[in-house]
């Protein structure tokens, strides 16, 4: 029981939710799966007077392909993502990230939009979406705006979302031939594990086996899930081979030492970051074809 909640609304259309957001402003909070919000309310970290439920809105639950772009509605659940046919081949990293979250009970309720808007540094969906250069489509009464996900995430549990705005969906381009995306997560146990460290890596290569496009994103390696721009620049244009992977792993370690200086997790993360990088890279190169034994054999 939460005695602070005075009014609740179950909405079935986004317009309805937007109108309510406009009316109640900061007194209101959107609730979808509720798997984070209800705990935050219980701990007294947030105490909204008004709850606006969007978990029954159908239009934002869809996952679909539109003109070479993939769109994931903000109230699509992780169960929907992990079982969707769009994510069973080249984009399996997305399904894998969704599957690594919580328990079946949590995945049946928790939504992609909730994971993004709560903006935990350890949010599991963020690294793969950042590595795919996803865009966030935000709506408010009467208008919409589109911003890169990396700009949407402004800090620890901070986003660019205005009080009368909601995240409608995210979208990203399908990945071309000669490219791949991988995801790796370290948690303390298989089920229910909150990421201690995660990484997603998108890489594209040319006919000579050189890295012609690279996007790396990390989770729980700083105050927010973020792009690893320096590491991307380090790899860009270079020949993809074992030597480069070793050099990049060392580069990442150096970066982590700088970023996490003084933190108790540093002795663990400086090594772990190399492991998740290698695993994500390996998976990105091999793609869904498990016959390829060694990542760079594909080149």
């Amino acid at each position, binding site marked *: *029981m*939460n*005695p*602070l*909640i*005075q*009014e*609740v609304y*179950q909405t079935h259309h986004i317009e309805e939710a937007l109108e309510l957001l406009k009316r109640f402003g900061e007194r209101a909070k959107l*609730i979808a*799966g*509720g*798997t984070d919000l*209800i*705990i935050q309310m*219980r701990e007294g970290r947030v105490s909204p007077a008004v*709850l606006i*439920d969007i*978990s*029954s809105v159908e239009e934002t639950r869809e996952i679909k392909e539109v003109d070479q772009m993939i769109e994931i509605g903000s109230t699509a659940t992780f*169960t929907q993502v992990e079982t969707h046919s769009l994510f069973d081949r080249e984009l399996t990293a997305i399904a894998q990230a969704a599957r690594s979250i*919580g*328990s*079946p*009970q*949590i995945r*049946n*309720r928790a939504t992609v939009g909730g994971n993004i808007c709560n903006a935990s540094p350890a949010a599991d969906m963020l690294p793969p979406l950042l590595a795919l250069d996803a865009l966030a489509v935000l709506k408010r009464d009467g208008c919409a705006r589109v911003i890169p996900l990396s700009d949407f995430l402004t800090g620890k549990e901070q986003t660019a979302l205005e009080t009368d705005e909601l995240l409608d969906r995210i979208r990203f381009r399908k990945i071309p031939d000669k490219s791949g995306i991988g995801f790796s997560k370290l948690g303390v146990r*298989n*089920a*229910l594990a909150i990421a201690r460290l995660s990484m997603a890596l998108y890489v594209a290569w040319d006919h000579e086996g050189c890295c012609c496009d690279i996007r790396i994103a990390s989770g729980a390696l700083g105050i927010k899930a973020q792009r690893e721009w320096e590491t991307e620049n380090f790899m860009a244009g270079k020949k993809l081979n074992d030597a480069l992977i070793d050099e990049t792993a060392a580069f990442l370690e150096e970066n982590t030492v700088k970023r996490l200086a003084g933190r108790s997790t540093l002795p663990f993360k400086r090594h772990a970051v190399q492991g998740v990088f290698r695993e994500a890279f390996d998976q990105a190169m091999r793609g869904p074809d498990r016959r390829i034994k060694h990542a760079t054999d594909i080149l």
Partner: protein
Amino acid sequence: MRQTSFKVNGETHTVEIQEGMRLLDLLRNTLQLTGTKEGCGEGECGACTVIMDGQIVNSCLVMAFQAEGKEILTIEGLDLEDGTLHPIQQAFLDEGAVQCGFCTPGMVLSAKALLDHNPHPTNEEIREAISGNLCRCTGYNKIVEAIGEAAKAMTKGEKDRGTAHRGAK
């Protein structure tokens, strides 16, 4: 207070709820369906698991008003009217998968949701399906065995019923 309508165990209910109530409070306190347990209250232990619109959810992480229009199955809705246990419940007893019993309602419902979608699960799939339900007594092996046995019994039951039906023709 506000009114809300939903189905629990096949029966439609329209009740007054408080805005800040969770589905778990509604089931236990308003409807007196105390088979659904509260363990951690934060979605870790799965003792409060119920099936909502065909999927297992932690009822401690669903607000009561969010259940408007939904169909909910709790442990009380599983056995037949004459008191015959559901094959999963029977298998839990037969295999010794119940010790203190606190996790059992949630565990049985997670098993039911699994077997509804996947009648022939592997042990791995069973373990994954109950990964959101903690048990501090059994060590899980007997639970996994019970769910495997329930799957067999349910498949056999269907076959028998199919034969009976054909025979009646």
